[in-house]
C-alpha cells in the first residue's frame, strides 16, 4: 500500500470506523449515566439548584482558590497549557475547520497557522510535563493505571504527528498526515472506553455536583 492509498484509507474507511465507534460508544456511555438518574431530593431546598449547576459547570474550569491552585501548581498550569493548546489546535487550525465544515456544513474563521503552531508546542510541552508529573509525583504515580499511559500516548501522538507534518520533519508529509489521521482515529476509538470520555461526562459530573450543592445553598 503506498502513501496515497493509505491516506485514502485513513480518510475514508479508517475515519468511518473511528467515527462510528466513537459516536456509538459515547452515546451508550451518556445514556447509561442519564438512565441511572438521581432520586428527587425531598428535603426542603434552598434553591432548585439549576443556577448553581450552571455555575459549577463553568466555575470548575478554574481552581476554587489561590491555596488550592498553589498546592497543585504543576497539574493546574500544565493542565491549562495542554487543554487550551489542544482546543486551539483542534478548533482554530484552518485544515481542521475545513474538516468540520465538510462534516457539519458550516465553518468559522481560522487563526494564523504559526500562532496555532505555538499553541501546539505549548500543548506538547504541557503533555510532557504532565507525563513527568505522572511518573514522579507519589499520588499521581500511585493512581496511574496502564490506561492512563495509553490515553497519554493517544493524546500526544496526534499533536506530535500534526506538528511534525506541519513542519515537514522526520518523515515525508503524506506519511505524517497518515500517522496524524490514524492517531486521531485511534484516539476516537479509545474515547468512549477510557477516561478520555471525561471530555463529555465532566459536564454531567459538574452539573450534578453543582445542583446537589446548590439545593443545599452551597456554591461549589
Amino acid at each position, binding site marked *: 500500500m*503506498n*502513501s*496515497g*492509498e493509505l*491516506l*485514502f484509507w485513513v*480518510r*475514508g*474507511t479508517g*475515519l*468511518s470506523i473511528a*467515527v*462510528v*465507534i*466513537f*459516536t*456509538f*460508544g*459515547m*452515546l*451508550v*456511555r*451518556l*445514556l*447509561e449515566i*442519564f*438512565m*441511572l438518574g438521581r432520586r428527587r431530593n425531598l428535603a426542603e431546598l434552598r434553591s432548585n439548584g439549576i443556577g448553581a449547576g450552571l455555575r459549577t459547570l463553568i466555575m470548575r474550569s478554574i481552581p476554587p482558590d489561590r491555596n488550592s491552585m498553589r498546592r497543585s501548581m504543576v497539574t493546574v498550569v500544565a493542565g491549562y497549557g495542554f487543554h487550551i493548546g489542544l482546543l486551539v489546535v483542534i478548533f482554530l487550525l*484552518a*485544515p*481542521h475547520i*475545513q*474538516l468540520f465544515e*465538510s*462534516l*457539519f456544513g458550516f465553518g468559522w*474563521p*481560522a*487563526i*494564523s*497557522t*504559526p500562532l496555532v503552531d505555538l499553541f501546539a508546542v505549548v500543548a506538547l510541552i504541557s503533555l510532557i510535563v504532565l507525563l513527568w508529573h505522572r511518573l514522579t509525583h507519589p499520588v499521581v504515580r500511585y493512581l496511574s493505571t496502564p490506561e492512563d499511559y495509553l490515553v497519554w500516548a493517544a493524546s500526544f501522538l496526534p499533536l506530535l504527528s500534526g506538528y511534525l507534518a506541519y513542519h*515537514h520533519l522526520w518523515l*515525508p*508529509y*503524506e506519511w505524517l*498526515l497518515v500517522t496524524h489521521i490514524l492517531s486521531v482515529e485511534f484516539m476516537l476509538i479509545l474515547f468512549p472506553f477510557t477516561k478520555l470520555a471525561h471530555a463529555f461526562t465532566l459536564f454531567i459530573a459538574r452539573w450534578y455536583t453543582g445542583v446537589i450543592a446548590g439545593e443545599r445553598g452551597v456554591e461549589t
Partner: protein
Amino acid sequence: MKNDKPLGQLLKEQGVSRRGFLKYCATLASLMALPPSMVPAIAEALENARRPSVIWLSFQECTGCTESLTRSHAPTLEGLLFDHISLDYHHTLQAASGQAAEAAREAAMAENKDKYLLVVDGSIPLDNPGYSTIAGISNLDMLEEVAEHAAAIIAVGTCAAYGGLPHASPNPTGAVSVTDIIKDKPIVNVPGCPPIPVVISGVLAHFLTFGRLPDLDHLGRPLAFYGNNIHDRCYRRPFYDRGLFAHSFDDEGAKKGWCLYNLGCKGPVTYNACATIKWNEGTSFPIEAGHGCLGCSEPDFWDLGGFYNALPESPVDISRLAAYGIVGGAAAGVASGLLNRQKKAQATATHETVNLSDLKREEKS
C-alpha cells in the same frame, strides 16, 4: 546510427563554442537542481560522454507525455539534448513505420546491447494481451524483450510510473506500471500527467553526464525534481500560513490569489517541481493559473477522494455514518440503561434491612 565521438567533440563540430558549452552546462546543472559549483565537473563529464541509444516504447497512453516533451522542442535545451542522443525508436516521432520501424528497434537493441536506454510511456495491460499491441506484439512481451538488455529504464508519465489513468478503478484492462513487471533493472519514474518536459530531459542529461540514474525517492522519482512538495514551494504558501483561503473559484479570496487548499488543492501531498520550474518555459503552473494541484505525479491521484474536496475532507459521508453511530448508540445505550435499571431495581427489591446484628460478621472457622 552508431556514433562513438564524445559529446564535446560533436558539439564543437557543430560550431558550439566553449562559452556556448559552458552556458549549456550551467543550464543543465540548474535543470538537475545541482549547485552552480558543479558546472565544471558537469562540463568535463559531458565533454567525454558518448551519445547513448534510446528506445522509446509507448503503451496504453495518450501521447500527452510525448507532446509535453516536443512542445518545447528544438532548438531549446531539450532539442539540443535529443540531438545528442540517438532516438532509435519512437513510433510516434519516427519517420519509419511498420516492419521498417520494428527492424530499427531490433537493430538498435542488437548494436547497443546492455547500453541503450529504454523510455516507456503508458501502462501495460495484463488482463488480455490483445488490449494493446504494436506490430502484433503485446505490450508485455515487447517491454520484457526490450527491457532485458537495457542499461536503465525511464518510466515517463504517471501511466508508466504507477499505472496511471488506465489503472483507475475499476481498471478494466488490468493495467500496471513498468515497475510492476520489470524487477531487475534500474528504473526511474518520471510521473506527472504529463511530466514537466525539462524533468524528462533533466533525467536524460543526468544519465548522460554521470552515466547512471539520479538519486530517487521511495516512489522511484528523481529527488532533484520530486524532493519537495508543491505546497512548500508554492508562492501562495504565505496565505495558507496566515489562514487566508479561497472558498470558491469566484470569491474574493480567489480574486486575491489566496490559498486554494479549501478548493481541493493537493499541493501538500504532491511531490513535483511545478511550483519552481513551472510550465510553458517557466510561465505559470496550475496554482498560479488559479486552480488547485490535482496531485498528478502521485500514484492513484484520480481515485483519492475527488479533485475539489479539500484534503482533510473525507471521501466518505462521515455525517451519515456518525448518524448511524448515534442511532445504534442510542439503541444500545437505552438497552444497557434499561438493563442497569432492572439490576438496580432488583437490588433494591431484595434489599434486606440492615440491622445492628447485621454489622457483625459471621466468623469463618
